[in-house]
Structures are given as structure tokens and as C-alpha cells.
């Protein structure tokens, strides 16, 4: 049995018939070819698959595609506008907030939501705000610096 879904992904309207069990992250990756969103675990711990659904940071491995019916989804591919990096992307680059890059799309999406909620986060608030996203390469220090840098730039 397949169910119809209609949703907007990075501003493009999509309609499809999908199995009810199809995870959103697999819809994005395998059906739409948006492979920027990565899968790092199967228990919703790592946050690599974080996307925005209607402005909220959500782990797309824990959402069924049918649950996203009617919503607006944004992935890492939709963040840069008119060929210009989003300030969060730019800050991650400037501050060396990534190494292997696998957690990075999820980190960036979580950061966008974090700054939206708290435009001037302290170091402790950033560290707490990233508790749902794991990184094994950076020791988090430069990620924290990138988040604070992005927040400062977005305020300016």
C-alpha cells in the first residue's frame, strides 16, 4: 500500500506515492537525490540527518515521509541562496568547524534553529544546544566558535 504525499523541499513542490514506513531521510536521499543529509545512526542520537521542517530542526531519520505531508522541508542543499553561503555555513568554514564533514549538514541545520531561538547564545548555551548532534572529529571547540560567530554576524 502506498500513500500520496505532497510537500515542499527547498522551495520545490513534490508529490509522490510512498510506502507509509518510508523515512523522510530516505525519501530525501533515495527518491529526490538530495544526499547532503546524512544518516549516522539508527536511534536518533547523532543528528547528522537534521533538516528543517516548517522552521524547526528535526531528525529526518525519525520522521515518516507521510508525516511531512503538507510541510515545508529545508535541507542543507537549500540553505545557500543565490550562490551565497548562509552565514552559518560561512562561519563553519571560517572557524574550521568541520573535518570529515559528515555531521556538518546536521550541525548547520541545528545551528540555524538554535540561533533562531537564541540570537546571542553563550558558550554554555551553544554546547547545550548541540546536545542532539554528535561530532567525532572536532572535539566541538571550533563548532562552538562557529555557532557564536554566525550568531554575531546574523545579528549585525
Amino acid at each position, binding site marked *: 500500500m502506498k500513500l500520496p504525499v505532497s510537500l515542499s523541499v527547498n522551495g520545490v513542490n513534490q508529490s509522490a506515492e510512498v510506502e507509509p514506513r518510508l523515512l523522510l531521510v530516505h525519501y530525501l536521499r533515495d527518491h529526490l537525490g538530495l*544526499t547532503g543529509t*546524512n544518516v549516522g545512526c539508527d536511534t536518533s542520537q547523532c543528528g547528522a540527518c537534521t533538516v528543517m521542517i516548517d522552521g524547526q530542526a528535526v531528525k529526518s531519520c525519525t520522521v515518516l515521509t507521510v508525516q511531512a505531508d503538507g510541510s515545508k522541508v529545508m535541507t542543507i542543499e537549500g540553505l545557500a541562496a543565490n550562490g551565497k553561503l548562509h552565514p552559518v555555513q560561512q562561519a563553519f568554514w571560517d572557524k574550521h568547524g568541520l573535518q570529515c564533514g559528515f555531521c556538518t549538514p546536521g550541525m548547520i541545520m541545528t545551528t540555524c534553529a538554535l540561533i533562531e531561538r537564541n540570537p546571542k547564545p553563550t558558550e554554555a548555551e551553544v554546547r547545550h544546544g548541540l546536545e542532539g548532534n554528535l561530532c567525532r572529529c572536532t572535539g566541538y571547540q571550533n563548532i562552538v566558535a562557529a555557532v557564536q560567530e554566525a550568531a554575531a554576524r546574523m545579528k549585525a
Partner: protein
Amino acid sequence: MASRILGSAIKRREDPRLITGQARYTDDFVLPGMVYMSVVRSPYAHARIRGIDSSRAAAMPGVLGVFTGQQMKDAGFGPIPCAWVVPASDTKTPPYPPIAIDTVRYVGNAVAIVVAQDRYQARDAVEAVEVDYDPLPVTVDAFKATQKGAPQLHADVASNVCFHWKVSGGDVEAAFRDADVIVKDHIINQRLIPNAMEPRAALAQFSSASGEVTLWSTTQNPHIERFLLSIDTGTPEHKIRVIAPEVGGGFGSKLPHYPEAAMTIFASKMVNRPVKWTETRSENYHSTTHGRDHIQDVEIAAMKDGTITGLRARVWANLGAYLSTAAPGIPTILHGLMLSGVYTIPNIHEDVFGVFSNTTPVDAYRGAGRPEAVFMVETMVDRLARELKLDPVDVRRKNLIPPFQDGYTVATGLVYDSGNYEGALTKALQMADYPKLRLEQAEARKKGQYLGIGVCTYAEICGLGPSQVAGAVGFGGGLWESAIVRFHPSGKVHVMVGISPHGQGEETTFAQIVANELGVGVDDVEIMHGDTDQTPMGWGTYGSRSTAVGSGALMGAIKKIKEKATLITAHLLEAAPEDIDYADGKFFVKGSPDKFKTIQDVALMANVAWNMPKGVEPGLETSSFFDPPNFVYPFGAHIALVEVDVETGEVALKRYVAVDDCGKVINPMIVEGQIHGGIAQGVGQALYEGAVYDDQGQLLTGSMMDYAVPKAENFPNFELGMTETLTNVNPLGVKGIGETGTIASTPAVYNAVADALAPLGVKTLNMPLTPERVWRAIQEARS
């Protein structure tokens, strides 16, 4: 200009594709006709396979086939080879079938594979494969597995002892006989799960027309992968292309040659379609190699003034159920030979038993052997200091190897390249303001607060390494590196290298070297790696070797470019080659700097070849192979400050000071990033991480819900400092920096916690130092 490029924090050239989602990891690739593989894995740690019924699975929607180990064997696929058989240790190498045929030996051992049209169908069908198991007794602990009556894993391996390796230097018996004091400990260096954020994946495409195999793989060393696949898949090496596209971290866990790579090739042959397999995280926990897992009995002999005169140890190293690619070399060569640490310990003896058990195979994990050595030595130095009521810094100073530049031979026979351990320690103590910290600690104790200060001074062996030594210690390959530098007519440059970075940033570092040496822009250089068809043979990225060894090859190729450019310039300017000098991208006549050709001029002329000197070939492309004369030995001093809540057992890491010396720094931003990440993983071992098996071999920490991968909140900002002691081992004087943080931080943090708890009489503490363990240790000491 030149000097500014080398040593500057240039932003990484890898990043734009990674921050925009354009990077392509193995699982991102889709080929026409591609299907998916999923693996049936054993739920038992040890069992006979009585039968496999795949009929129900084979009939499910989308299923192209279900295949067993016997079928794989019948198709000509052999056992997985071990590539590091350490000599003089009587190492047993029992067969390691990629898919178990009659016996499973750990939970997660592959039993069959399913190939289906999509991921979901493949997973569904895995559930429907019925395997009839006859459970056997289980052993999981490296010491217990060697004892009488323990279940035996492999027919020809008595007491499960894969090897008994020894290292000896000096007269250790005399040292212990004449010692003023002997300090002993029983150390559990617990098993860790590497947790690269990208799970492993493999995508194989077999062409029946050409007999060629292309494998996209999450590997740290595509050329080794190709070499080993040529052994166990029966495919000739020139018919195999291995591509390591973007790889999402490895930390050693993507160094081994795994069964799944061979399985996807087998499956692709069977169904005549490209086949992709991507592990789930739970699968990763069970079937990707683990690290560490030592049981160590250690004792040191010393004099009353703190002079260490001997070290003796017996180690049981858990190898898991089968020998993974590099497994035997890790608790031996990379561990036992490092037991002198940074000290002048004249007498050393160690026995290492490599032991099979019903657990996931163990192989390299960041530091690989060296953390198990440095932790042993550094925690014992602190035990000695407590025993003698001396400051642990004073005991270190008493025993440090004095500064040296041209080699220092330790009792185990290694020749360290260069070091100034006192310099790094002094700087770290200054940065931490050690005397003040001790005062604060004393003040805090008056108030019932338990602060602890932990110091670690370390050196480690990396930049693996001279090939002659590799051969002598049983490594099944070479350890040199290669580079090709190719100038295009417009003066832009392609560099092809044999290393295979996966987060370490060598696309930037190596471009900086080329720009610095040849006067082109950093952005005019493209570094290509990770594809056996497009890059020269090389041995890959692990053991902090990529820059230490790879830059030697790059510098060799650059030197040849300069030599050829000198000949061409001399010809064009009608001067003698010996009268041509080079600086900042210009080849000029000595004494007449206005008479010059730029490297771009030379590149154009060499490529069009209209007017070349006699006997000089067209083109401007050189290649070089670099085999270092020695390993490199980075070093440093780390200091941790912790506070222990003695009511809850919770440990808070308050400050962390790290001074490291990796010789010449090419990009300080990247070096600092490597140190940050390394420290975090080492702190993870000290405080949070540990794989736990029950006595039936079930992995109780089998997912990220149960295994504590550290989070951002677990760390303070690390305070970094550097010293610079060049090495003579390679042209740039660089040492590796990928593993130092992990090696140093575990003992630094452990020592800090032990220091905090010493006034309470706590003597036994086992990692990870979770609140429960610390609390129990405190209760035990109080009772």
C-alpha cells in the same frame, strides 16, 4: 611571499563542498541498475550453523538472491587475509571466512547476504532468513579466554592464544632486585568503539564483459584495499579499481580490509548488477572493528629519589574472534616498543599475549597501541609519585630524556628522532600556572571540594614508517608514499598522491606546500587522492603518516620540477643551468634578477615544447616515491584539571592545557583541529566510553543509546600551545599530529581524577570514570 604560505592558517579547500551538501560519500552514489545488499548476522557469540533456510526470504518482493558463505567459497572467494603477522611470536592465523560457513564466533558475524531491489526489501528479507544455530560456550575476556577450561574458538589455537610476543631491553631482573621501591598495578584499558560518524559502506560494480571490478568504499587506504581484494576475491589487481570518495572519518576503523567489501563484489557477480551495502549504526557497533581492550599487569622499579630503573608488564590483548588486517601489530610493535615513554628507563620487559575471544575483531583505533603504552607508563609514574610522596612533575623531570636532535635510543631498541620533552612540560606548566593550581587545590580541599590535577608527558611513534622496518616487523606491505606533480600549459597544477585523507585536510596542507615551494597560488593546485586508477600507489592514511611521509614524496616531486624548470629556463635565457637560481616562483639568472622565467612560463614552454633544451623531454610532470629513514616521534605535555563531586561521583573537566610538538607546522588551524578532536576522544575513554559484553557475548553497548559518544557539553575549551622541534626524517621537518591528543588526554584526565581522590584513599579506579564507578571507588575506600 613563500614563507607566509607555509605555517599560515589558510581556510580549508575541502569545506565548500562539505558545508553545502555537495560532497559525495559512498552511500550517496547511485548507479544504473544498482541494487542493495543487507547482511544476515549471528545473534549468538558462538554457535554451530546447522542449517540455513533462505527459501522464504528468496521469494519475497524485490529479492534477487540470498547467498551463503559456502556459495561465496564455491565462487572462488577466499578467507580475509591478515596483513600484519608479527615475527618471532608464533602467530596463528586461523581462517577468517568473509561469511561464516559452519561456525559463528561473535555476535554480528555474517551468516548470509540478501540482495534486493531497495534498502527496505533487503532488510525485510534478512529477517526472513532462517538460521538453525547450535549454541556453543562463550568466552569474552582476554585473560579468562587463556585459562584452562575456556571455550576454544579455533581448532589449532590452544588456549585461544594467537601469539606470545616479547620485548626486552637491559636487565629487568636486576632492576627489580635492586629497587628501593616497586609499584604495581592491574590496568584495564577498556574496549572502545571507534564511531566514525559515517557508517561503513561499499558499492561494487562487476563487469562480466571485462572482468573488471569497481569498488566505492569507505576506506582509509584504497591501494591496500585493492591489493588485499586481489588476494581474497581472485580478481587480478589490474582489474580492480578502488575509489575512496568522501570518507566520513575513520580513526583506524576504516583501515582494515573488511568482509563486506568482498561480499558486495561477490554479490555483484552473482546478480550481475551494481550492489550497494551500507551498514546501520547498530551493525557498525557489532561488525566494524573495535579498539584497545588490554588487561595489563604492570610494575615499575624505582629508587627513593624517584628515578625509575625498570618496567615489567604482562599484557593480554583481546583480538576478538578473528585477526583483522593490522591487529597483531598494534599491541606489539605499536605498544610494547613504546614502554620507555619519554623517560630514560634502562630496563624493560613485556610479554604480550594476543587472545581470541567471542567478540568483534579488534584493530586500530586512534593511537592504536600507543594509548595503551602511554596510559600504562603515565599512570604508573603518578602511582610512584604518590608512593614516594613526590610531586608527579618532579618525578617526570627526574626521568625525562634530555633534549636531543639526532636520535635517542631507548631500551626497547627504538631510535626516537628528536625531542625536547622538558621544553614542552615547562611550557604546559606555565600555561596552566601549575604552582597556583596546586594552591587552589589545597584551598578547595579545605572547603570539601576535590580538585585533581593530572599531568601527562608523552611521545609517540607515528609517520609509519620505513618500509625496511615494516618488512622486518611483519607488516605485509611497504610504508613509503608517492606523489605526481603535473603542470598544465596554463600553469595550473594537479597533484596525485597515494595517501587517502578523510577529514585531515591534506587537500589544503599539500596545496600550501606546492604553493610555497613553486610560487603558484594555493587555488591553482588541485590535490587528487583516493582512487587507485587516478593516483599512484601509496599506503594510505593512518598512523599519522599522511603529511609526515606524504609530504616527503611531494617535496621530492617538487624538487624534480625545479630541476627541470632550471634546465628549461637556462636554455631560454641562454645561461648555464648552474647560473640559474630560484625564488618565489621565478627562475632567474644569478645576479640578474630581472632576467627570469616564471614557473608558468616554464610550464607553458614545457607543454608546447617549441624550444626545449637538447635531451630534455617535453611536459612538466614529475613523480617521486619517498621512504622515510625513520618513524617520527611527536611529543608534548598535557595537564587536566578536574573537580570530583564526592557525593555523586561525577567528574567535571574544568580546564585542559595541551602543549604539543609536531615539528614544522604547515597549517596551524588544521593542526589545532586535529589536537582538539584527539583530546576529545581520549577524554571519552577516560570518562565516558567503554564497550561492555555480557558473559554470553552480547554487546550491551550496542547502539549510540548505550555507548556514550561524548557531546559538546562534556568539554571545556581546550587551551593549546605548541613547541617546534624539527625532525631530520623528512624534508620539511614535520611530525604527525593526528593521534597525539588521544594518546595524551586519557592518562592526563585519569591522573587528575586519581589525584583528586587520593586524599580519600582511593587506590583502584577503572575507566571509564563514570559517576557510578567513581562513587563506588569512594565508598570502597571509605569502608
